[in-house]
């Protein structure tokens, strides 16, 4: 994955090969979200990287196996965040806050 390296800790009865698939799936999600993800994307948007991870894994287990659904959930959360922020930014712009 270009300059990206991933490290994953698993238990001894876990399937190593499926862990590789999990890592690969996560990279694909990042890739889809950022558009050709590279190191800088993750550095400057680390909180987004966390949010994406939290939609894919929960408590260490895979929660959603459909790429589409994970990305949809992130999109919805991002939308919600912007809706919360937009009124504020307008007010800030005209100097009222």
């Amino acid at each position: 994955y270009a300059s990206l390296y991933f490290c994953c800790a698993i238990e001894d009865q876990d399937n190593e090969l499926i862990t590789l698939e999990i890592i690969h799936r996560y990279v694909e999600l990042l890739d889809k979200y950022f558009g050709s993800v590279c190191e800088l994307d993750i550095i400057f948007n680390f909180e987004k990287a966390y949010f994406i991870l939290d939609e894919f894994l929960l408590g260490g287990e895979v929660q959603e196996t459909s790429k589409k659904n994970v990305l949809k959930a992130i999109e919805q959360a991002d939308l919600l965040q912007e809706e919360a922020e937009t009124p504020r930014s307008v007010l800030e712009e005209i100097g009222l806050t």
Partner: protein
Amino acid sequence: MPGQRVFLHSRTLPVRMVAPSLKLQDLIEEIRGAKTQAQEREVIQKECAHIRASFRDGDPVHRHRQLAKLLYVHMLGYPAHFGQMECLKLIASSRFTDKRVGYLGAMLLLDERHDAHLLITNSIKNDLSQGIQPVQGLALCTLSTMGSAEMCRDLAPEVEKLLLQPSPYVRKKAILTAVHMIRKVPELSSVFLPPCVHLLHERHHGKAVGLPILCFSSVDRRIENRMGTPAHRRRVAHTHRHTRNRLSCPWPPPFTSPTLTPGILLGTITLITELCERSPAALKHFRKVVPQLVQILRTLVTTGYSTEHSISGVSDPFLQVQILRLLRILGRNHEESSETMNDLLAQVATNTDTSRNAGNAVLFETVLTIMDIHSAAGLRVLAVNILGRFLLNSDRNIRYVALTSLLRLVQSDHSAVQRHRPTVVDCLQETDASLSRRALELSLALVNSSNVRAMMQELQAFLESCPPDLRADCASGILLAAERFAPTKRWHIDTILHVLTTAGTHVRDDAVANLTQLIGGAQELHAYSVRRLYNALAEDISQQPLVQVAAWCIGEYGDLLLEGNCEEIEPLQVDEEEVLALLEKVLQSHMSLPATRGYALTALMKLSTRLQGDNNRIRQVVSIYRSCLDVELQQRAVEYDTLFRKYDHMRAAILEKMPLVERDGPQADEEAKQSKEAAQLSEAAPAPTESQASQLLDLLDLLDRASGDAQHPPPLDPSPGGALVYLLDLPCAPPPPAPIPDLKVFEREGVQLNLSFIRPPENPALLLITITATNSSEGDVTNFICQAAVPKSLQLQLQAPSGNTVPARGGLPITQLFRILNPNKAPLRLKLRLTYNHFHQSVQEIFEVNNLPVESWQ
């Protein structure tokens, strides 16, 4: 794109009176722009000061930005604990942005080891019940990441409620949060077990209408308590319809969105797996859903659902692996469940596309499951063959998992794994260290008596080229395998020799002792061994174990070395002087360890009796070392020198060839052997035991039976003294001391050796043996020497023989007295060594005396 939007924001911000706090991106840029560690620290300290001030001022608007910056700094390793309280405030805020960052902060900064973390419990509770799905998601995520046991206990009811919410998005998160809760607080299993089966059934709601409702429970507490009993299960299914309307929680709609349900199924399987791993009751309960799971997996494998869940042609490998894992746990140690799964496992194993990693992952999980349950033999062989195929895969990861799995299986399915031996041996050539190490372990485990020669060749070749950290393991592995499966002694000696020359410095300490023991025991190979060792030593005196063994051998069998002819290898003309020179070289070399020097000195000394020439050279060396700084060497040298000067007449006897040394096993081992021998000797045959007390108990049995008394033996006192007291307490008197019969122990061409035994009554621990050597042949017996050895627990004293010649035709026999002290009444074993000249030939006999009368030591 989301990232770009943030930049737009920064450009439209107006200039304010107070210096605007840095945007997260700007801070990151600044930190990355720092050229040195010190500069970075400076930037960060300055910014942290700003952040702290901002927190103190309580600015709600930019709090999330400040925390985000703090989190970045925290990721770099700087202290960020002062942000903990801010996380709480952000979580409590109503803005989604705040919550998002606040919860992330909680997961990164709050720690269950500090009490502060409990403060978010209330916020989480509120957020879980307020119904905005993304917020509920955040709360559940945080709970399952850092939720401590107390938090889990407090919030379990909320999570339980969410398990039945209509929204699949929240439900799937709630299920996995339940998994975490059970891990933290196992008692919560009882709370989360009832919803499981319902959730499992719900997956099929949209599709298979006719599927039998196997075991159905609801959240209704009354029914929950009667779960598991077959009679009530029918009633439950019947009353389900009635309770449905009375439930407080909304019932899930009949048709859930098909694209989101697989997430719930995956979560449910994970939850059930966790429950079954923790509680045997749950395990028993869920065994009943095995057929249902089999059906789900079968559908998945044959038809799949949608492309969005599949990876390179394999339908939802994550789900498949999870189901297989659950099946493994359910089928373990359970015949019936295992049988139900057999066909399905075979199907998955044969139909999965293995061109990409996803398929191989599923295949691997299938193999693990097959090996762990009670599967049919054919299926197990199939599994091992799959692993064998993995070994040939070009992907290193797959070869790795294959090797680790085969290692686990090699004991239980040995013959199946043997079939892949050639592939395993090829893996020895792997460049990757972890792969070659496992290949080595596996190869060693596969050595058996039929393939030992071929395998040893491969392993020895590997030893020569293997990386240094594997050398020790390889060497000891080869030696161990050679010991167990050596086809011939000569092969064994050759193998050990090769290992010592190749990797001498890496062998274990007892390799030297083992080899000397081995060589000593193989009389026919003495000449061969000493020759080979001499050659090896002449080439290289740096490998200490080799040098030690070679020195010992040369010392012992130096005469054979000089004889010149040996059928096994080319004749070698060795000069006495050369041999002495070599040993002196070893003695003087700076590479030789003190122990090695000791060996060399003793070898030189022994050669003084083996070689023909005068011993001046040897005497010189010995006297030089009398003033050696090494105390051990000095002592040896002084003793040897004294031997030359004052006890020259004894030198030959003392430096004679050593009798075979008993293998140094644990003391208990030897006692067990001794008692086994005693059992063979005595008529009553007590069972072989290790403790003195139980041997005495057996003696009591003997006496009881002998006198026909039906009395039980008294309770055992572990100390020998105590047992002796019981011995005396028996009503039946011990049998009176009878004269012990003589024993003929040796006969050869008219020369005979007899033993006679006396047990003086005043000293019960003492045994006197008189050996008598007679000669009825036509030739004289001259230079007769008899030596004896007894077990360690006995003491032996040899008195001087009456002479060392037995004239022919019944001439005056030689007698010699042995005094043996046996205070512990240990079973007597006696080994004799005779050397003499007869008919112009020198005779040497070593043998153990069998049939020693029991009375000689009881």
